[in-house]
């Protein structure tokens, strides 16, 4: 979806076109779900939060003003707030759920490789959860979703240079945690 094309879709969605919003949903649902899932580590909660993110975006899209950034910026901002609200209301249980088998497709040659890879992913995911919220956000957006620093800066409402510094610190801390676990 090109920038101009996305803008016209957003404009149609603002006008109440459900099909247009459906296209935006299809494009961004996966990445918003991943973002939320990696932060809450619970499948049902991630689904619930992601649903509310898109519902919120749909209900308030009339007030959206396109400033040249992808629509995902708005969705990430809503998702971040929803996750914060989630942790504010539910502090007691943080379920360190193992990755669901269906979450990551197996493409390793042998079963041994697949098990090893699943273990690596689980370890990284657990280490990721020990980081600060900002660090988690930056790592997910920069290294998993591969967003540009300017997009991340826009979502986190921080200067781009700050994002780069935070990114460096986040990776350093993640490496330290993984080395500690290893």
């Amino acid at each position, binding site marked *: 979806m090109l920038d101009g094309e996305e803008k016209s879709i957003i404009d149609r969605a603002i006008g109440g076109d459900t099909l247009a919003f459906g296209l935006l*949903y299809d494009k961004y649902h996966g990445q918003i*779900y991943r973002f939320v899932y990696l932060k809450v580590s619970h499948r049902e909660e991630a689904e619930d939060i992601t649903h509310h993110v898109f*519902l919120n975006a749909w*209900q308030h899209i009339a*007030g959206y003003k396109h400033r040249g950034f992808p629509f995902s910026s708005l969705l990430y901002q809503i998702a971040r707030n929803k996750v914060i609200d989630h942790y504010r209301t539910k502090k007691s249980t943080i379920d360190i759920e193992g990755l669901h088998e269906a*979450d990551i497709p197996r493409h390793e040659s042998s079963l041994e490789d697949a098990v090893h890879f699943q273990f690596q992913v689980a370890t990284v995911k657990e280490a990721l959860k020990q980081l600060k919220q900002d660090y988690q956000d930056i790592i997910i957006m920069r290294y*998993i979703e*591969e967003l540009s620093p300017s997009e991340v800066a826009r979502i986190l409402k921080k200067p781009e240079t700050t994002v780069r510094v935070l990114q460096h610190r986040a990776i350093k801390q993640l*490496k330290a945690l993984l080395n500690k676990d290893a």
Partner: protein
Amino acid sequence: MKTDIFKTLRELKHIHPDSDYAKHSRMLILASPQQSPAHANALRVSTFFRISSIVGLGLIGIFMILGGTTYINETYSPLALEGLNHRSLIAEADEINASIEVTLETIDYLDTSNQTTLTKIAEISKSESPTAPAATMMLAAPADTASATTTTDIGAFLIKSDSSEISAERQINDILDEVSR
């Protein structure tokens, strides 16, 4: 593990939501009504007023609390004892100042009147008895020579002046008696 971090992170991109959930969620969202721009504006305005009223009430509350605290402090606080009251202390100090000024004025007056009296006595004694100016001698002479002058001269002078005053009073009384008849 160190070298695999970025690769592993990239692999996390393969996490996908359940397709049934995704379809169901999509359907529910698109079936829900969209908020109209007018409604969104109204909501924004009402939010603004709500926040403004909360801030306003908060400020009024703070003002009242501060005012109340000040009033209680000034009225009921043990620090508001008369001796510690700033205003009463100033008034008391002013009063003391005024009384000191009055006392100084009195001393000054007494000193001046004393000098005048002594001058008058000296003049009178000169005119009455040129040979024995007791009071003048007392004033002019040093202490040791003054002590040498006779106290009888001063006594006679004082008795004489008293008797002249009494006789003057008598004369006045006589005139008043005659007038009253």
